[in-house]
């Protein structure tokens, strides 16, 4: 797969696979092309070549809302909440896709169970939440869409370690409830602890890939990403 903005391609010859029901990790330094890759999957960036398959069907070139309709839901980098709307409204917009709207009540309760903090803040404007709460809301909002594949772009960005831990705990619970997850991160430690398969992206190419256990043993990975 090749993708990019303008005449310059950011990604080259990427092959990446997320197994049904698994958690896959995507590692890489700033500017490696993680966000571009994720935007390409969601249809926010036009793909100039190659194929993106979801459950065997090609989805590249589809409109973002059609990709959402298939159940591929993204939690974008920087949360991208609707800051002037309440927490509840943000969650409601999460279940905008037709398939999710019917089960709105039930999912809403589930999300509040995952993130009890959101229950307390239900009527508050999203823009007034703390960083951690905003990330919870962003994931909660994505969950409202009843994803089949949940993609997270840098969920730990700018958060305190304790909150990062709790967020990744929730991700494990979500995965345990049967949702496939792809998480792009700079925080290699968390990813290697959580994911089964991990890909390492460097300069728009897959530099390494394998199971977490394999990569955690790899000395180059240890040196560049774990600081060991």
């Amino acid at each position, binding site marked *: 797969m090749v993708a*990019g*903005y*303008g*005449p310059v391609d950011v990604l080259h010859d990427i092959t990446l696979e997320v197994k049904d029901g698994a958690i896959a990790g995507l590692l890489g330094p700033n500017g490696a092309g993680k966000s571009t890759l994720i935007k390409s999957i969601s*249809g*926010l*960036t*036009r793909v*100039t070549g190659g194929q993106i398959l979801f459950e065997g069907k090609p989805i590249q070139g589809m*409109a*973002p809302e059609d990709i959402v309709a298939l159940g591929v839901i993204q939690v974008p980098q920087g949360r991208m909440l609707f800051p002037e709307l309440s927490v509840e409204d943000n969650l409601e917009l999460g279940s905008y896709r037709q398939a999710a709207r019917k089960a709105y009540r039930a999912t809403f309760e589930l999300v509040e169970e995952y993130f009890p903090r959101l229950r307390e803040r239900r009527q508050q404007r999203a823009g007034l939440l703390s960083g951690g709460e905003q990330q919870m809301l962003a994931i909660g909002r994505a969950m409202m869409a009843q994803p089949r594949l949940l993609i997270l772009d840098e969920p730990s960005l700018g958060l305190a370690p304790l909150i990062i831990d709790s967020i990744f705990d929730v991700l494990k619970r979500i995965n345990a409830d049967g949702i496939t997850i792809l998480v792009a991160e700079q925080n290699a430690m968390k990813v290697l602890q959580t994911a089964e398969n991990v890909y390492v992206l460097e300069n728009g190419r897959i530099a390494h890939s394998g199971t977490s256990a394999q990569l955690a043993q790899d000395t180059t990975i240890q040196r560049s990403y774990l600081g060991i």
Partner: protein
Amino acid sequence: MSEQASWKFTPTHFALGVLLILAIAAPLAFGSYHHYLASLCLINIIIAIGLNLLTGNAGQISICHSSFMAIGAYGTTYLVSKVGLSFWVALPMGGIIAAMFGLALGFPALRLRGFYLAVVTLGFLEMSQLLITELPSITGGVRGMPASRPALFGYTLASDLSFYYVILAITLLAIWCAYSIINSPTGRAFDAIRNSESVAQTLAMPLSRVKLIAFMLAAFFAGIGGGLFASLVGFIDPLEFGLWTSVRYIIIIVVGGLGSIVGSVVGAVALTVLPELLRDFKEYNELVFGVLLLAFLILIPHGLVSVVPRIRQRLSGKTNSQPAISKHGAGV
């Protein structure tokens, strides 16, 4: 096109030379109606260049450009007819008076941007219109004011052809000035504040001074254009400098190309000539103009100057891909 140590004769220079010769020789084959139109073209070029410096280069919105033009027109005419100055002294003084007002208007611009600035400039336009109508002893009020043609070396430039050559010389001077400004540190500072004010803050020159300079320059060019306009037409009234006139200059620079001197020139020529070509449509001419303008913008959103590079790019086979969707007004 930065300055080069060794000067080479390129196709661009050739084209410019041909244009210049045409601008000098062609009018001889036509009558006073065409000389008058050609002179209006040149005046519009001068005024559009000023606006393009402010809007296209420095990124500041102004919808009171016609007011600066009015200040130049009334100032010059007043200095000639009531004070008795020579036109050649009065014209730059009219420009300087306009620049002073530009400076004054620049101060609110230091704090305001976008729509907020637009509305303040609109207020300035309303005020200048009111002043023109309410100060009949200086401006002739709503009845308007006659203006005379200047004399040069003892000759009165009564014929449109002779005045055309004078305006041509002034226009070339204006183009050269604008070119030098754009390629000076000030010009680069304009680009910097357009692209990002926070980046511009790191420049050597204070941000506020750059903005004030932009406003003064734009007003000066408009003032000079206004002074020439008054003398060319021979009669000015407040209706000539209303909101629609300002809008026309915005249209000129957008159609020509923002931030480009060539854009100002081709835009001014196109939008001065087009209404004359549409005369046969009679009462439908503005309607047809609107339709043509809209079609043009949809087909060539980046202005006439973007046409040549686009063709070149297409020939070399490169295509552009963009983010799939965004709001309007992206990529200024």
